[in-house]
């Protein structure tokens, strides 16, 4: 907390308690005097370690009769290269996406070549320049059409390629205007100029899509064969220009038409509303993080922000909050209305309302999370109190540092030797003879401990630290008792098995 306030301090500052020591020496003394004792009261640490050892040994003895202690881990590999030593990862995955896309591209390329060829022809056929003959002017028109697409010779074809019936007086030969093949009338399809224009430029001819989208499911082929489809017949007589095309061309164009429709489908109201929620949530996320840091700092008594700022942000938060709430309510209402769905299609209705309800649930959850994590704006008094508190704390610290400094300063100049001596004393630490350790390694950990402790006692005696010797001796006694106990138990257990 103290550092978080952000005032940078220089000088000989103790890394542990942040007190300012005026000189290097003083810092050293201070650190060894105060912190070394805490962190490395070595002897004590060793003893608690030894006690733990004893305890675990005892535990082992009490557990041995239980047959279940055998550890299975030894039977499993513990190799470093082993995958099992790492945290579990996601399993194998095989991706076919690239191959799939390649296949799809090959397929699509082929189709698009065909489509563009047809579209280019259509563009020429339906263009309405001055010198281009109108449909009414049959002969010239035919010549014009034949210039663009070469018509196949009538004589070569005896059967209609799609229905395989022979041509005669009643079954006349016709030409597809797009690829020039011969077809009979029932097998022909008719493409209105207006729709052809839409195919070429779906985006620009904006007036048409509305009419088209209404009948998009039955689509382009609205100009069906003359006899079969009444409305189509009307269309045909409707004065509007059209192109006679064959089935295969129709199929290609239909696909193009479907794709355009697929891209241009209007989004349901639900999704538009949901976008709003997402947007609001994004803003909420942003504001929320700044807001919480602001509140945090205000309550810490920092003067960086004012309460007014927090209140302003809080208002913004609650507008976002309201927006999410109201939009999601709106969505959940949509669940019952089910726009654009046939009433018979119960599957879709269920699906649609489930979707809406789930969105509402999601929104509620988001709101809940925010509600829990948002703190109210603190009152003036709270902030005031926090600031005073902080001020007091800072003053206190400065005061205590000053006192400590004074104390240290008074201690150092006394004599030079005490500091040296003191250093030695506080730094005193029994060292372990390596050779002894190696010897002891083969022994029981308890025996090892006993050895070490006796060694420490000897060292402490040499160093003349009587109190340390006293406590060490006490510990040695404990150790020996435990050792005896353990040995007895061991005897018993070996006897048992």
């Amino acid at each position, binding site marked *: 907390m103290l550092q978080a306030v952000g005032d940078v301090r220089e000088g000989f500052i103790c890394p542990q308690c942040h007190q300012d020591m005026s000189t290097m020496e003083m810092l050293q003394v201070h650190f060894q005097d105060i912190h070394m004792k805490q962190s490395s009261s070595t002897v004590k640490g060793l003893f608690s370690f030894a006690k733990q050892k004893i305890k675990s040994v005892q535990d082992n003895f009490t557990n041995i009769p239980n047959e279940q202690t055998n550890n299975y881990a030894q039977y499993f590999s513990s190799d470093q290269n082993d995958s099992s030593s790492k945290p579990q990862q996601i399993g194998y995955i095989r991706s076919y996406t690239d191959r799939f896309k390649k296949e*799809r591209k090959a397929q699509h390329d082929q189709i698009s070549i065909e489509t563009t060829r047809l579209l280019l022809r259509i563009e020429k056929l339906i263009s309405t320049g001055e010198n281009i003959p109108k449909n009414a002017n049959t002969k010239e028109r035919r010549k014009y059409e034949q210039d663009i697409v070469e018509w196949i010779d009538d004589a070569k074809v005896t059967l209609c390629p799609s229905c395989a019936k022979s041509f005669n007086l009643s079954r006349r030969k016709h030409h597809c205007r797009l690829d020039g093949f011969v077809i009979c009338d029932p097998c022909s399809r008719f493409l209105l100029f207006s729709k052809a224009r839409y195919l070429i430029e779906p985006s620009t001819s904006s007036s048409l899509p509305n009419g088209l989208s209404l009948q998009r499911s039955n689509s382009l082929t609205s100009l069906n064969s003359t006899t079969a489809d009444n409305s189509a017949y009307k269309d045909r007589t409707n004065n509007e220009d059209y192109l006679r095309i064959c089935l295969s061309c129709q199929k290609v164009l239909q696909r193009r038409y479907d794709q355009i429709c697929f891209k241009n489908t209007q989004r349901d109201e639900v999704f538009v509303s949901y976008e709003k929620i997402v947007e609001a949530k994004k803003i909420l996320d942003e504001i929320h993080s700044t807001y919480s840091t602001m509140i945090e700092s205000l309550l810490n008594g920092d003067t960086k922000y004012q309460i007014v700022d927090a209140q302003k942000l809080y208002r913004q938060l609650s507008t976002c909050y309201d927006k999410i709430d109201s939009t999601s309510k709106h969505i959940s209402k949509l669940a019952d209305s089910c726009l654009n769905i046939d009433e018979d299609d119960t599957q879709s209705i269920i699906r649609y309302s489930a979707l809406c309800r789930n969105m509402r649930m999601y929104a509620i959850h988001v709101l809940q999370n925010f509600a829990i994590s948002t703190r109210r704006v603190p009152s003036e008094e709270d902030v005031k109190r926090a600031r005073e508190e902080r001020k007091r704390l800072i003053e206190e610290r400065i005061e205590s540092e000053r006192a400590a400094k004074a104390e240290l300063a008074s201690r150092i100049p006394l004599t030079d030797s005490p500091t040296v001596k003191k250093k030695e004393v506080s730094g005193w630490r029994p060292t372990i003879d390596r050779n002894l350790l190696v010897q002891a390694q083969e022994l029981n950990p308890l025996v090892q401990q006993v050895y070490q402790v006796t060694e420490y006692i000897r060292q402490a005696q040499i160093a003349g630290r009587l109190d340390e010797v006293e406590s060490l001796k006490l510990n040695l006694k404990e150790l020996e008792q435990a050792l005896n106990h353990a040995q007895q138990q061991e005897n018993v257990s070996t006897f048992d098995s």
Partner: protein
Amino acid sequence: MANLNVIEAVRFYVRRMIEDCHDNIKGLIMDKETASIVSMIYAQSELLQKEVFLFERIDSTGQKSLKSLSAICFIRPTEENLETLVRELHDPKYGSYYIYFSNFIQTNAIKTLADADEFACVRVIQEFYADYLAINPHVYSLNIPTTYHKYYEWNDSVLHRTVQGLVSLIFSLRSRNIIIRFQKSSNMAQTLADRIYSTMKTQTDSITSNINDTSQTIVLIVDRREDAITPLMNQWTYQAMVHELIGIKNNRVNLSQVPGIKKELEEVIMNAEHDEFYETNLYSNFGDIATNIKALMEDFQEKHKNQSKLESISDMKTFVETYPQFKKLSGTVSKHVTIVSELSRLVGLYNLLEVSEIEQNLVCQSDHNDIVQKIKRLMHDDKVRNEDILRLLCLYALRYEHQSNNELNALKNEAQNRRQLSEKNIRFIPALLNYGGQKFRQTNLFNTQTPMAITRQFIRGLRGVDNVYAQHVPLIKDLLEQLLRGKLKDTFYPNVSAKDQINPNNRNSANQLQPQGQIIKPSEIIVYTIGGITYEESLHVHMMNKQGARIILGGSYVHNFSSFIDEVVSTETFTRLLNRERFILLQPQCVMRAFQICIYLPALYDDPWLIFKGK
């Protein structure tokens, strides 16, 4: 060292699926099987938070198109699913498709799908090998209720599903080098082992990642027929008990039979992943659960009291903050209290303690006359269910199958006289002997001879039986211990073609595997039980895992007594039906034979016409 966790493995896949789709609004399309795979590990509310707003079955999508929705399709690569998908792509209802198959797909399927995708709305096609139900971190199931086909052989489709399931498990755990060991006495185990071996061989290379990975995974394939006892026993740990007495299906427990049940508790979900109490008590003994549930109740009441006095604003605030947890806790409390009280009601009602004690003694001790008397006595006890009498008869039949003074028929008759056992139940005993009788078993199931069992009995003798209801130790534990100690005999559990392990880049280690008796230290062991596992086995494997083992246990199904009866009886009926058919087929042959004799009989004489000449 982290233990491999099958639940985590499936979770990884599902999480990745959802995260890879960056669009806002997602729909998850599944088939029947993948739906249960996902529902085992994710609660719907959890997925909802990741903006998955629609859950659909691929076979029942509506007409209305939702182009703003991205569809995450997680489906099994079956023919039907592919057909449905192709149809869907021709007339897409969603804006984009992220397709994940739970297993291998044929390569030509890619072409079919690519051709179908006219609108270019497929974004991703991947194989995510989550093709099994993850029940507990160390337990999986393939959810095949009946594995055995006629004469205890594989049915092609079931075999295919099993191979796919197991290989997907291996891949989902990132195991590459596997050693397959199978139970030799079972043809099915052998077939399965071979199929897995060849599938792994063809599939591994295309997926390989880390070549330096030297970890070995042992796949142990066993047959339920080797140990038919475990599914017959009453259970006393929480999860096993619930399954035995009420029934767990895909983590759902149907409580509608419980008298006076509240409407909202008729079907509860028991998922250890989302239910702390359940998680800690899955393997607790029945007695302990009662104490734990009491503590839970007290904790709840304490909190409830705190909740009820909302005096200051800070109280309100803590209430709002802890409310979700509070609500969750209250749900858990009422659920577990209901279940535990129902369990204890059933235990008292059917006198299960006594039944179970006799069951355990029957299996683990060897005082024949005493047991017979006890069974006879239980038959007179009206509280005891017919089902439990049947358990005892079955255990008796298996245990003393070849004993000369076998009193099975006497017991059967008496049971018949005193109680009305259904026809299915009566058929079950011979069917069971056929299923898991001594004829089939290669080890002595009631083993009093193996060193392991002897030590166990010795220790038990020293300490006295600490829990009479948990004396029985399933065979699988013995097998696993033997396997770990390198004592599982190759003659009974051979290795699939040990010569060329699936480890082409590491010949050395393959050679090391050769000498028998050499212990391979595996990184984990995967067990597959043809014919299903039980929660008792799950418990024992869990105990081993707690002591440092890394074992994953699974099978075709998780059985309780009644589902086990169903499987055995249906297999048996099928087999018998076929036997009878053969007999019918034989009859014309007899006629033919008779006819032939008539024709050739005259040939025995020197002169064919002698008979007629009458001289």
